[in-house]
């Protein structure tokens, strides 16, 4: 009459998140991809391996998106899943000695790992905020922060006064802090 599913065996590895469509899934992806990759840098320096693991975890998330169980805690789900996959990998490679202590033994996140996860998520938010700065502001900010130009050099390059450069920098800092407060 009705197909019977043995609930004790079904969905053992299921974890739940409220993702109703691809748009919502991509939003989660954007927010978590870099933090998860950086989390794994604790385990290995192999970027290809890192990205493979994280992409795998996201595919699992998409597959299991309709399970309602851990709806409130997507963060724990993702970081735990990534950690779990790293364990699986190290077992399959028998590379015990190298990264044995990268993560705590438990499937749960340890307090340290949770703190690291939170910090990485915040950093991601900051990097994303950088992209939302007004173009001129961002240009000045990046020339200074990433290209290491002095205010005088920026002023010369962009043909503006040093005072204006300083104005842009102040605006950038202010704006960034605003974006992050939200």
């Amino acid at each position, binding site marked *: *009459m*009705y*197909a*019977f*599913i043995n*609930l*004790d065996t*079904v*969905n053992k590895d*299921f974890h*739940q998140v409220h993702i109703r469509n*691809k748009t919502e899934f*991509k939003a989660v*992806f*954007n927010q978590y*991809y*870099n933090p998860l*990759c*950086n989390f794994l*840098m604790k385990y290995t320096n192999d*970027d290809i391996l*890192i*990205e493979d693991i*994280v*992409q795998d975890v*996201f*595919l699992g998330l*998409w*597959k299991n998106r*309709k*399970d*309602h*169980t851990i709806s409130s805690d997507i963060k724990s789900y993702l970081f735990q899943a990534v950690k779990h996959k790293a364990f699986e990998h190290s077992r399959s490679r028998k590379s015990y000695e190298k990264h044995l202590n990268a993560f705590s033994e438990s499937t749960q996140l340890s307090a340290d790992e949770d703190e*690291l996860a*939170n*910090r*990485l998520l*915040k*950093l*991601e938010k*900051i*990097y994303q905020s*950088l992209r939302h700065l007004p173009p001129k502001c961002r240009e000045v900010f990046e020339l*200074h*922060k990433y290209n290491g130009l002095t*205010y005088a050099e920026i002023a010369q390059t962009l043909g503006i006064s040093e005072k204006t450069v*300083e104005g842009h*920098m*102040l605006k950038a*800092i*202010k704006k*960034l*802090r605003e974006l*992050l*407060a939200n």
Partner: protein
Amino acid sequence: MNIDKIILKIFRKSESLEELEMLEQWKKESGDNLAFMQALNLEKSDSYKEFDKEKAWSTVDQKMSVGSLSYLRYAAMLLIAIAAAAASHFYSKSEDLTFPVYKSMDKVEHYVLQDNSTVWMNSNSTIAQISDFKKQRLIEFSGEAYFDVSHQESNPFMININEQEFVRVVGTSFNLKSKGNDFDLVVYSGKVELHSKSGIIELEKDQRVSRVNGSYVKFSNVDINTLSWKTGELVFENVSLEKAFETLEDHYNVDIDYSAISLYNCVWRTRISNQELGAVLNELEELFSMKYIKEDNQIQIEELHCD
């Protein structure tokens, strides 16, 4: 002094000692502030690296539509496609192949199902929706839960117990415990039908059916503590201690061994609202001069006096 201006000065390496101290203070105020300074590379961070998110997304996006489906699911999709016989419906139909699963781990959870029915699930329970809820609302269930099913006369709500037996309602509230061979159902409002191998058992408010030695037994529910797992409240109205201990064992998941003493003539009248076991044991100590030893989940009662 404005913190933005201090940061600006630090960029120019023209900050004063005092300003540096103020910044240190500000960083300590919150993790957000610290993360902010780290992101500005003014603070040594764990060298945060930006991976190529766009490229990663396109890889994931591609695999999402192909790689994640099993052969079985392909077969199911094919069958549905044939059944639907309409190519335009193909994708929306295949979407519906997975229905939500609700799970409670180590605590009571509250869920609203797709049909607006509400469920409180005791720990370690699972509900799996197995139909689209459009013509009939079918679920698989394991564990204990209180169901408040939304009334839909022509769309019955059915809970499978095993291959042949199921519970059927159209709109009611009831508590159901079903796991392995354990079965216990208490109705709080409306009507519930239990379709068993030996026939249909109908239940109304305050009626209860349990499985005893493999067969269903129907009786009136006089146990006011059936929902204590959900409400956290236990009520004993001059109940024998023997019965009360049994209830406490269930509620707190402990074993109470009173074989060393006599409970003859012992009755208890109390109301326990969301209390820890320790507080309950304290009350027993005071009321009955009880003495006990507790080891993990084992409680051994050594002395107890009823007047």
